[in-house]
């Protein structure tokens, strides 16, 4: 067990350390999230009832776009300086350290969004009781986005126009997460309870955790071959 946990934690610590050294990059993702969310009232008008109705969808779409924006960084730096090849050559199982990298990426880019979301929801006059559901849905959903996006990031590694291509590849795959994530808040506000949505999101997270590291490992091998 320890023989697996050791490399996992080493990669996790390394990526978190690197992210800490380049804090500005991380803050850009968060700033993007905040700015996108704040743009919507200008677009649809400051009418409170309308803002309250669209708040879950706006926050979720903004979280999805911010995730997308940071995805290409997941493997790009390691690909350029050769770390990725060294990791692939190492005897440790690839899905293991891929999971560690995605987890570090989520802690750096996803977690700040989850923490910032309730505050932003207040700008849209969302009922305070729904804030917990919103946070929980984002906490369960954004890791799925990171895991699915990692496969796309690995497939488009080092390609011309990789960023746009990445968006085209992964956005259709994000749709179920968006539906259940935003739907959880709506269901809570509608009175039916968000349990079903949150359970489905949790199930999706477990499924993605079990399957995507292997797809991602295969995609990385193809990319550096």
């Amino acid at each position, binding site marked *: 067990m320890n023989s697996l946990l050791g490399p996992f934690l080493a990669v996790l610590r390394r990526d978190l350390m690197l992210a800490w050294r380049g804090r500005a990059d991380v803050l850009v993702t968060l700033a993007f999230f905040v700015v996108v969310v704040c743009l919507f009232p200008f677009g649809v008008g400051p009418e409170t009832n309308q803002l309250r109705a669209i708040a879950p969808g706006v926050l979720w779409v903004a979280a999805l776009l911010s995730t997308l924006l940071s995805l290409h960084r997941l493997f790009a730096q390691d690909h350029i300086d050769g770390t990725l090849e060294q990791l692939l050559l190492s005897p440790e199982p690839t899905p293991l350290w891929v999971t560690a990298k995605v987890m570090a990426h989520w802690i750096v880019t996803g977690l700040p969004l989850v923490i910032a979301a309730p505050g932003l929801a207040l700008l849209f006059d969302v009922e305070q009781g729904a804030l917990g559901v919103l946070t929980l849905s984002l906490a369960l959903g954004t890791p799925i986005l990171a895991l699915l996006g990692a496969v796309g990031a690995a*497939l488009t590694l080092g390609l011309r126009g990789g960023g746009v291509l990445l968006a085209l590849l992964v956005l*259709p795959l994000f749709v179920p997460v968006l*539906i259940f994530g935003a739907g959880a808040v709506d269901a809570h506000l509608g009175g039916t309870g968000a349990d079903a949505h949150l359970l489905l999101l949790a199930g999706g997270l477990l499924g993605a955790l079990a399957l995507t590291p292997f797809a991602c490992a295969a995609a990385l091998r193809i990319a550096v071959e």
Partner: protein
Amino acid sequence: MTTDTLNRAERSRSLFRFAAPQVFYPIAGRLAPWFAGIAAVLTVVGLYIGFFVAPTDFQQGEVYRVIFIHVPAAWMSMLIYLVMAFWAAVGLVMNTRLSFMMSQALAPTGAMFCFVALWTGALWGKPTWGTYWVWDARLTSQLLLLFLYLGFIALTRAIEDSRRADRAGAIIALVGAINVPIIYFSVQWWNTLHQGASVSLTKAPSMATTMLSGMLIMALAAWAYTFAVAFWRVRSLILERERHTDWVGAELEAEAKRQ
């Protein structure tokens, strides 16, 4: 017993023989015109039944006749994605180049059928529902399927190294295939939660047999068309990939002489 296993080994070897691009190239060339001919004949017959033989629908009038193009296109677009994912999986497991080429040859046809289904659906929706588009579960999942096709095509075209393009495309095709049912059911659930069954796509419970036969004939025409186009496209892919080999040179020379 021994002869039986020997035969089986021989047979499987003979099946694998077709996986060689060199062997498949002339076969595809010979089959494609036949399928194109079958497709043309079936389309004419199917459209004749659809436009002149099938009775007018008592609810929708003449508009419903778009069904003869709409439904076969929608069926085909979903089926082609599965076939594409199947060939991608075969390619990854068996390491056969032709399988990857086949899945790439199928993708544009699938995207085309997907687009046709959406377009004819919009044209059908306007007179019957009063709107070109509703966020109905079927329409939405069809739209997402089109995006999946476009992603696959864009990815395989963006990678220059054909070996990497093949494998990367195969992975995204498989990830998409796993996601298609998830997308379908999530979209269905989302839709029913939001607006209930305000617009239902279910048709009259019993369909006139002429309508059904016209639709089935059109579906067969779509199959034949797909075979023909995929074969032609895979031939160009083979030529492009194998242009450095001797047999392609000989083949092209022979073709030039024939003309």
